């Protein structure tokens, strides 16, 4: 029995039936990591000690019959989520060696449900990027084609699941950073409604856009993981106290549902024919399952990218000010005075893309430019929210490709930041509007995975999950295994 490509739901059954021990499950995954991660490079570091403690605890609980939902499930955690005592660096040299004295809420809830953390996954530095090439350590490779990127910024979390190194993983999504790598690696990835999952413990990139979410091998697995993380947290003032009802009507199907197809997304510039063909097939499957596909329009889509690349850098310029070498992380000790110490620490510690965004954001917030950039971008954000509100009057959910392209070769976009920014064109609208969105695998183009994105109104994760699940059933998609 090869457990490294089974779903969480299947493993849950085996573990609770005591046909499989958490200890064995863990060692199979650790072995798999040993075998493949030299090539995939999904992990920045593994956490064998923590994992064996947690697996032992899970086995005790399973034996005693009081095990949590996730007891014994191998989990990978993106390097932006603080875990007590585990080096957490946000993919940046500036935080090298930083071990948080606390565990963030989402991960803590997964631990309380019995999950076993196998390691910390690679990502673009401070989650800024769409290919994981901006990692301050090394790039991660796509398990479907090791010469290609896994997407990003949660590229390590996506490839770890795709490569069978973890059953599920946690990522973060600021402009598409869960959904896009999920699409490129052929796994399910979900960004919840802003406020659904507490951000406490998430090293902030852009506070008004960041959300933590699951990556998994099936829609059901993603739903289970999300449910375990979601819910109000008194430590995050932006977390909601709405009922945790994300799995409501999960198997209800799409019969009678209206699914909106936004022209601006369907015909987006640069969409590859193979991707379009995969989406057409997916739409056909959904139609067969009883959904009505309706045309909708999101007229301000073109401005979304511009607004996003003002708001996100503006917030990041402030969020990253704390990395000054005074209290933790890298610290330049040769400086003559405190200003030089700041500058030298930050010049050495931050990579090119982070510095670019800090400068962009600082500029956008500067006196004299604030109204023209930040304020204008916030107004565009309001228009984009309104676009979605209007569209959702005509449909229950919106469907599109997750990414206009399949995984691209490593190094092909690193010299062209604007081309890299365009990777997020179909996903960042969901962040600007705070909507839940899921990417589910919908076949291959040129042998590489394509993702179908489902966006739902705020707080309607249930709708996004239900549509994604219906597609999974209708398309008879089995767990897609990367040919590694």
């Amino acid at each position, binding site marked *: 029995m090869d457990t490294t490509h089974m779903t969480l739901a299947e493993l849950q059954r085996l573990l609770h039936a005591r046909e499989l021990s958490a200890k064995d499950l863990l060692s199979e995954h650790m072995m798999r990591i040993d075998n493949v991660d030299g090539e995939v490079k999904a992990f920045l570091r593994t956490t064998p000690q923590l994992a064996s403690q947690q697996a032992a605890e899970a086995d005790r609980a399973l034996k005693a019959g009081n095990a949590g939902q996730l007891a014994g499930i191998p989990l990978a955690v993106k390097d*932006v*989520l*603080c875990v007590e005592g585990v080096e*957490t660096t*946000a993919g940046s040299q500036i*935080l090298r060696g*930083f071990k*948080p*004295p*606390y565990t*963030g809420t989402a991960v803590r809830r997964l631990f309380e449900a019995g999950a076993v953390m196998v390691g910390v996954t690679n990502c673009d530095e401070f989650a800024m990027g769409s290919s994981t090439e901006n990692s301050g350590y090394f790039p991660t490779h796509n398990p479907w084609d090791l010469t290609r990127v896994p997407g990003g910024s949660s590229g390590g979390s996506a490839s770890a699941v795709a490569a069978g190194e973890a059953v599920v993983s946690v990522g973060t999504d600021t402009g598409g950073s869960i959904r896009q790598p999920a699409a490129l690696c052929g796994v399910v990835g979900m960004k919840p409604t802003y406020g659904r999952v507490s*951000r*406490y*413990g*998430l*090293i*902030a990139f*852009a*506070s*008004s856009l960041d959300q933590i979410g699951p990556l998994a091998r099936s829609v059901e697995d993603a739903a289970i993981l999300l449910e375990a993380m979601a819910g109000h947290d*008194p*430590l*995050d*003032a*932006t977390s909601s106290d709405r009922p945790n009802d994300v799995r409501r009507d999960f198997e209800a199907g799409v019969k009678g549902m209206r699914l909106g197809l936004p022209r601006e997304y369907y015909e987006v510039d640069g969409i590859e024919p193979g991707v379009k063909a995969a989406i057409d097939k997916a739409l056909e499957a959904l139609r067969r399952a009883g959904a009505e596909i309706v045309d909708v329009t999101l007229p301000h889509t073109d401005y979304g990218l511009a607004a996003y690349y003002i708001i996100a850098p*503006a*917030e990041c*310029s*402030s969020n*990253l*000010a*704390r*990395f*000054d070498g*005074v*209290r*933790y992380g890298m610290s330049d000790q040769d400086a003559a005075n*405190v200003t030089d110490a*700041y500058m030298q620490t930050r010049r050495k510690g931050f990579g090119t893309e982070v510095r670019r965004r800090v400068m962009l954001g*600082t500029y956008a*917030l*500067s*006196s004299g430019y*604030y109204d023209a950039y*930040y304020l204008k971008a916030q107004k565009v954000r309001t228009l984009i929210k309104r676009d979605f509100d209007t569209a959702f009057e005509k449909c229950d959910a919106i469907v599109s490709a997750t990414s206009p392209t399949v995984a691209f070769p490593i190094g092909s976009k690193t010299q062209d930041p604007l081309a890299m920014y365009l990777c997020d064109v179909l996903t960042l609208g969901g962040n600007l509007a705070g909507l839940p969105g899921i990417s589910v695998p919908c076949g291959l183009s040129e042998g590489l995975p394509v993702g179908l994105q489902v966006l739902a109104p705020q707080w309607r994760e249930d709708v996004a999950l239900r549509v994604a699940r219906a597609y999974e059933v209708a398309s008879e998609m089995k767990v897609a295994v990367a040919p590694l």
Partner: protein
Amino acid sequence: MSGGADLNPPSGPSVHLPGKRGGQPPAWEVVIGMEVHVQPRTRTKMFCGCEVGQPGDLPNSNVCEICAGLPGTLPVINKAAVEACLKTAVALRCEIPRHTKFDRKNYMYPDLPKGYQISQYDLPMSHDGILELDGRKVRIRRVHLEEDTGKLVHAGDKLHMAKESFVDLNRAGIPLMEIVTEPDLRSADEARDYAVALRTLLRTIGASEAEMEKGQLRAEPNISIRRAGTEELGVKTELKNINSFRALHRAIQFEVARQVEVLESGGTVAQETRGWSEAEQRTFSQRSKEFAEDYRYFPEPDLPPLELDPKWIEVLRQALPEMPGARRSRLISEYGLPATDAHLIAAEVAFADLFEATVKAGAQPRATANWIVGEVAPSGKLPTPAVLSEIVKLVTGGSITRDQGREVLHESLSSNRTAAEIVAERGFAQDSDEASVKAIVEAVIAANPRAAEDYRAGKKQALGALIADVKKRAPQTNPKVASDLLMKALSTP
């Protein structure tokens, strides 16, 4: 206007402060706006669960991952701080908007753990209020809420000489209300009176203990001068490091004189922040403000905007106690207190409460005021109204002397016993009985023939020696009765 030039003969003294030259109109008008930071009375910090602590606490002992600004942490608003701020706003008759929000003020400094301070920028908790100062209205521009920074400790005292610097984050994240006036104050006296009145108000409503020595109230005056009669504001300087009301007064006086001297010698005042040196009794330049720092304010994305429920504000408004100004007027009209006593008593809510409770317990009002101003206030301790009313009654009724009353007061403050117990224990019951006092008086006259003779010969001061002997022989004798009887005995040949 040419007034300024006419008033300043070229050879005349270059520094003259407003009001110093009798009837002559002042050459310069002083314009002061005050920025006061007040620590509201809360148990915990502004955005985390850490205790606010005390000034002497071990460095970094009241610090958690949130106020240390560790990666991944988030702020959560302290409702008690919001309530204290709203109470203050209501007491200052401010307008309170329905929507308010927090903003980030971005700048980097080692005492600022997040690289930004959470403050309020364009939608403060309240604005446009008034504090009445002896009938004058000082306009309040805004009252908002923010967090304090940490503190740097330099080994070797001065920053540029320091070999090492340390960061203490105990104060980082402590709530602060910033109370800003319009430039309505016109002298050091007014500025100090404003700060004192503000402290009284804050204590009266229970929003803050407002102790300057504990850093709970920090006053930063913005000072400029202009030719009397002109409207345009001069270049201002902002003063910091002021640790007492006295220092506030002196610092402003010094700074005004400095600015007058600069301008009259043909110079220009630099826009800057100046520190007050208590040791040298002068201000010194700290930081130029010629090029205003760009704080890149933007709405704090980690905190949703606050919707202030008008019902909550109304509840706070209804619960406000009587304001110090109103109470002072009432102490005069209702109890017939002299204005000076009323002023002093109303300035401390504890004194005013003690006064009214003591009077309610049966003590005579003016005597009570006298005791509070003369004895209680200097002692720095508060008796219970029961003790004070007993003492006041015993003294006014002539049962004990004022000196004995003072002793009883001090004894009761340290022992918590009732006045009656102490009086009994010390045998302080005062003797006013004419027959027994007469016997003592006769004995004293007999024992001091020389003094008696002197008095009879017209040396009235000789009476003092005789009274002193009465006190020595019988300390509990009522001195008034004794002196009456002495005079009577000595006037009969």
